[in-house]
């Protein structure tokens, strides 16, 4: 498995998976022309990473400013994979970064975290 380092565009976020630091970061705006084409390969790799027993804590950082409904589905799948990873014994921490006065993005983070019980979730206003 290789590191992932996808640069952002106007419509797509930066997507990074660092196998040395065990850190996943999704940052920017997400409303791709073709959500499946953009996310399938890298997110498949991230889910595979989460599904493997890791010897160090995994940190997943979401720093999103805007995302559309199909991107939300991808994020929900990621949250499910993170919860399942925690259930399988990995230490998983999810950080939901949002601009301090962006109530909408705060509420979305809270909604996504509702199904979590084993993964550690933290809202981080910036």
């Amino acid at each position: 498995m290789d590191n992932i380092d996808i640069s952002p565009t106007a419509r797509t976020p930066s997507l990074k998976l660092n196998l040395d630091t065990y850190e996943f970061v999704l940052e920017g705006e997400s409303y791709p022309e073709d959500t499946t084409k953009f996310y399938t390969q890298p997110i498949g790799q991230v889910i595979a990473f989460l599904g493997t027993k890791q010897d160090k804590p995994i940190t997943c950082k979401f720093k999103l400013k805007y995302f559309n409904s199909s991107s939300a589905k991808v994020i929900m799948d990621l949250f499910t994979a993170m919860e399942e990873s925690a259930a399988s014994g990995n230490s998983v921490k999810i950080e939901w970064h949002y601009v301090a006065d962006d109530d909408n993005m705060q509420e979305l983070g809270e909604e996504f975290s509702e199904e979590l019980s084993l993964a550690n979730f933290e809202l981080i206003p910036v």
Partner: protein
Amino acid sequence: MSDSILTKEEILLDHFQNIATDLSADQLLVELSTLTNHYSKLLKNSSKLIRISDKNERRLQSISAELEFEKAKVEKIAGQLSKYLPKQIYESLFNGDQVDEIKTKRKLLTVFFSDIQGFTNTSSLLQPEVLTKYINLYFTELSNIAAKHGATIDKFIGDCMMAFFGDPDTRGDKEDALACVRMSLEIQSRLSALNTEWQNQGLQHPFITRIGIHTGWCNVGNFGSSDRMSYTIIGGEVNLAARIESASEPGGILISSDTYALIKDHVKVISKDVLTLKGINRPIQTYSVINILDDDHVDMSTLNIRVSKDDTFNIPTPDLTLQERLSLLEDLKRAVHKLEAISSS
């Protein structure tokens, strides 16, 4: 199975659609429990997605409302800004045609200058409020006429208006020069009527205006610094137009031989002095414009006013200056009013 963000759900559906029909009751209960769990999760996710979608829609509506507000604000500012910019430049800028960089080009332009005779003295005699009122009315009239004829108003300098024809739009050298002369004639005609009207309102010092026109190659474009620039024209030909204006008779229109050469078949002029102007190293033949010869031109060399069978005034119009003709026009209008009043009494 399709390759989509719903692949997981499609796999599950495929599984349950193709479930073996000969399963035992216990096996069916296990499958049912699995199906219920997945359905429950799918329901939660659908509910979440609907909420997210609604939130996004509300957010977009809010952004759309903000954009409308900002658009209205920009339009208001643009409307105010348009009063400070030549109409053509404003339109070019807002159409995206005009680049905001320091860039100039050489073009053959017909340059117009006007100023008010004795304005310094007039302004010292008038109350500032009165002066402001009339000078604003004066420039409003000039601007409206300039806009009508397609002039690019470069600037107002005190009582002087500087304008040009040929950039950013041109109708050709000859038509540009003709448009400038047509505009100048309309300005003088309108001012003649206005001065009478203003004098009736109590303004004792009419705004008798001198106009000078010259056609020549000028540098036109954005001049200044990268932070503050002005769309204007510069060059010796511009200075020449200003000098010709100062040599014009009050109420008259003086044009250079360069302008005259372009429009000589279309204007009636009186040859004026050859000017030797400071800073200009060639003598400049000038012409005072009497009138434009329209396509349906009739002989206007003599004005005949028949008072009675044996009493006729013949006025040789070419001998009159523009100012004298305009003054005569106002006198005749008053005479018409008087005659109408007499006939109806």
